[in-house]
């Protein structure tokens, strides 16, 4: 029974992981950008929630929406201000620029919010309730509920909307998409903002569960990359699958092996995948260059 509890806990966190993974796989897959600043969007989502809800007293759910919107706004600025001018530069240049950007945002956050870790007290009831023999905390239910909702909405967006189709076309063949009249600039902006928003949502959702400090983006970033590679670059379903998988494996790993190595689970899975199947569980074959 307790095994199922661990699995359930893992799935819940996995939902948030899926969100941050989807964002990155879309950015990496469609824009071919190794977005090392992705974790910072996660961190900002958490901090914005803190500022809006804990500091300014704005109602919780509204704060979450505002936080996500704020992160999307920042994502928009980054895309237009930094990524767009860098288009055409080598992938190393873009990668290192994003690393620099991530370092900058982290330390800016440290200056704005101080490095003292904060905690956000969720307004939801603190008592867990049981369902089918398993314990659930309301905040965690919120996480998985919102995560599933956002995954579903993103899926609909990609599959049914015009812009979603344009995104998928751009992912498959940039030249052809551009020749067909798809405005690549606009797709890139949209993709990045969407990715940032999902990462911000992930951060805002997990913020009341874990502590918030300026460097939480680092680990989130690395896990996001692990998820993207494990799931397969550019694969939406892969990112979702890998996100949940990572959550569950981390939970089980922490419970049965050692909690100190919990964060290593993602890396170990990543390294295993890179050795055996670099294109990931659901990725396109032959894309490791």
């Amino acid at each position, binding site marked *: 029974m307790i095994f199922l509890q661990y699995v359930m806990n893992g799935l819940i966190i996995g939902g948030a992981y899926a969100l941050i993974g989807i964002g990155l796989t879309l950015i990496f897959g469609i824009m071919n950008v190794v977005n090392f600043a992705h974790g910072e969007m996660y961190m900002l989502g958490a901090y914005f929630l803190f500022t809006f809800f804990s500091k300014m007293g704005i109602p919780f759910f509204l704060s979450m929406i505002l936080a996500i919107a704020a992160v999307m706004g920042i994502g928009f600025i980054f895309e237009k201000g930094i990524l767009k001018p860098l288009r055409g530069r080598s992938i190393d240049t873009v990668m290192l620029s994003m690393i620099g950007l991530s*370092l900058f945002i982290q330390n800016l956050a440290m*200056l704005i919010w101080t490095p003292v870790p904060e905690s956000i007290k969720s307004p939801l009831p603190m008592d867990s309730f049981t369902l089918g023999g398993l314990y659930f905390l309301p905040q965690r239910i919120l996480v998985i509920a919102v995560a599933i909702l956002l995954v579903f909405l993103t899926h609909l967006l990609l599959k049914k909307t015009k812009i979603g189709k344009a995104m998928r076309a751009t992912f498959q063949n940039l030249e052809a998409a551009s020749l067909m009249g798809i405005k690549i600039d606009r797709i890139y902006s949209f993709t990045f903002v969407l990715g940032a928003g999902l990462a911000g949502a992930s951060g805002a959702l997990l913020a009341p569960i874990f502590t918030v400090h300026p460097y939480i983006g680092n680990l989130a970033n690395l896990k996001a990359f692990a998820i993207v590679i494990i799931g397969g670059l550019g694969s939406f379903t892969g990112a979702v699958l890998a996100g949940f998988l990572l959550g569950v494996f981390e939970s089980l790993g922490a419970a049965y092996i050692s909690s100190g190595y919990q964060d290593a689970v993602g890396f170990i899975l990543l390294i295993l995948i890179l050795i055996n199947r670099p294109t990931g569980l659901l990725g396109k074959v032959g894309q490791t260059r």
Partner: protein
Amino acid sequence: MRGNRSIALIFLCAALVYPIIFRDPYFLHMAILGGIYTLLAISINLLLGYTGQLSLGHAAFFGVGAYISSLMYLNLGIPIWGGIIAAVFGSAILGFIVAKIAFKLRGAYFVIMTIGIAEVLKLVALNWVDLTKGPMGLTDIAAPKIDLGWAGLIDFGQKMPYYYLTLFFVVLSVLLQYRLVHSSYGRSFISIRENEDLAASIGIDCYKYLVVVVIISCSIAGIAGSLYAHYVSFIDPGVFVFFISVNAVMAAIGGGQGTLAGPILGAMLFTMIPEWLRIFGDARMAIYALVVIFIVIFMPKGILFYATQLLNVGKRTDGR
């Protein structure tokens, strides 16, 4: 070529007399750290500047070298001389393993793999408390004293002897880099960066050369780690942090990747830059980040390139 050799000799002489002129312990301290970073920069340069592979996880090999050397001393009583050799072996073996598993990977995948390795090792250092004492770290990693009898005692616990020790390894590595680059090995490394398929078609076993360069690169990083450990006499899992990997890459790029003098210049810069930024207090890392962004975007060929452009001296990007 002759001109370059003279310049190199001048720098060597300057380096040899430096501690005699600048006796201030702070200057010596900076020079020693600069030397250690030069080793890291050279190790990155071999990989990035010549074979074109970017590693953002070199802290892994630096840290492994540091821990192995420290544990050799603390647990087995082996002084730094043995420690460095053990560190080289350890880092080389780790590098070999990484090269084997990552050899099919290029670009971003290779980068992420290297980052992952450094992070895993950091977690191992944090959690394997029996071996590494976890977050408490290892202390009292002493540097040896050599009793030369009539010539006196050389105490490597003092900054000046340690400076010369570090300089010794820097010169060795610079020479190694030079010799490698001006050999068929160097040409093979460069051919991997320039056009792997073409290289294979003329008989270059790219995999073998990649493994060789990784092992050499990691060994040098291991030496840097060992030197660091016995200098600061205390290490903790912080030797694996991302910042070290990033700073090493910045040193290689900022100085000028694919050149011989670049890593030295870059390392000196990127040892000093975090120091100069201290005046900004808490904002120091944020400004460092801006420096990183600036150099990566506007000076990707490194300061050496743009400086020589200014001075209109022809220096090519293939290491001559």
